[in-house]
């Protein structure tokens, strides 16, 4: 009887050990198989907590997701004056259409695109739209421009992981992909009644 008790934890340990060994090999490979090039340094190969938690086919349990999301929520930078407007939808349109920036062929880490069209439909006249994310056509026309939706949209643009820890969407503001001014322009592209998104 006593033997059985011991045997079970041992077996568990063994399988955990194998998995960890593979994980260690992956982590080692993600460094040794790469080299730094321009602005793309080897730091990019190291995962933060969110990336690590979301690197398997199955997401973490609900409690972990909530904990991670709360931590990301705290990282959102809200507009200091509480004002989400002031952007130019035409600028926002350019940012949405550009998928450039932050690769090893980009000289500067600034002036990046938002790559929105890579995954979302926005202007109904654009044929070449991605489908990984939901359609944003008629964004404000369908959702209005109440405080809640405006605030949510800012937060989602700044740090998508605050709303879904394993979201496929980049953390534009937190990750330094887009500046606050650029996010304001994208907000205008989504909310301005004159924007093609709302036609």
């Amino acid at each position: 009887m006593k033997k059985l008790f011991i045997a079970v934890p041992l077996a568990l340990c063994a399988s955990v050990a194998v998995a960890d060994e593979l994980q260690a090999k992956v982590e080692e490979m993600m460094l040794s198989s790469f080299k730094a090039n321009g602005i793309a340094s080897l730091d990019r190969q190291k995962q933060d907590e969110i990336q690590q938690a979301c690197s398997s086919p199955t997401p973490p349990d609900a409690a972990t997701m909530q904990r991670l999301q709360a931590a990301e929520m705290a990282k959102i930078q809200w507009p200091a004056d509480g004002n989400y407007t002031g952007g130019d939808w035409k600028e926002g349109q350019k940012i949405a259409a550009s998928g450039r920036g932050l690769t090893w062929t980009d000289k500067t880490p600034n002036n990046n695109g938002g790559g929105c069209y890579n995954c979302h439909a926005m202007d109904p006249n654009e044929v070449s739209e991605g489908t990984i994310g939901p359609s944003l056509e008629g964004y404000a026309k369908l959702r209005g421009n109440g405080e809640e939706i405006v605030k949510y949209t800012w937060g989602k643009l700044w740090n998508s992981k605050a709303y879904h820890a394993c979201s496929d969407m980049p953390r534009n503001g937190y990750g330094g992909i887009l500046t606050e001014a650029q996010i304001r322009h994208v907000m205008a592209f989504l909310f301005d009644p004159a924007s093609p998104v709302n036609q």
Partner: protein
Amino acid sequence: MNHQRRDALKAGSGLGVLGLLATVGLIRPEMAHAAWNEQAFGAKSLDAAFEVLGAGKPAVSGDVVLNTPDIAENGAVVPVGVVSNIPGTEYVAIMIEKNPYMLAASFTIPEGTQAEVQTRVKMGQTSDVYALVKADGKFYMAKKEVKVTLGGCGG
């Protein structure tokens, strides 16, 4: 240099293809067959291209068939086929309306060769594609829109 050529050079200002071609000495006497139609390839509008080719306002004909996809995955390579069912077809041209220079390619069809050619062209954007056919001295045409899409991450 004849008058037509000088006019064409004037029209193709800046970095236009004509200027560049002139600098690399395109027209060479040793070419075996009729010299490349510089003026037609330099035409910047459909009407101008038709005029240079002496086509005037060609009639749309159901006997000219343009085989292209409705939508292209990329504009750098768009397959275009032309079949003319008009007897006596001696010449076929492919034109892209919204390209900087309309005329993409032209084919002279000798007796015994079928009026059926296929090639691939570049398209800068969604545009109408034209097939111009000359048969027994008369011109006919067909047109079809090809949508050009943008792919990839854009980075």
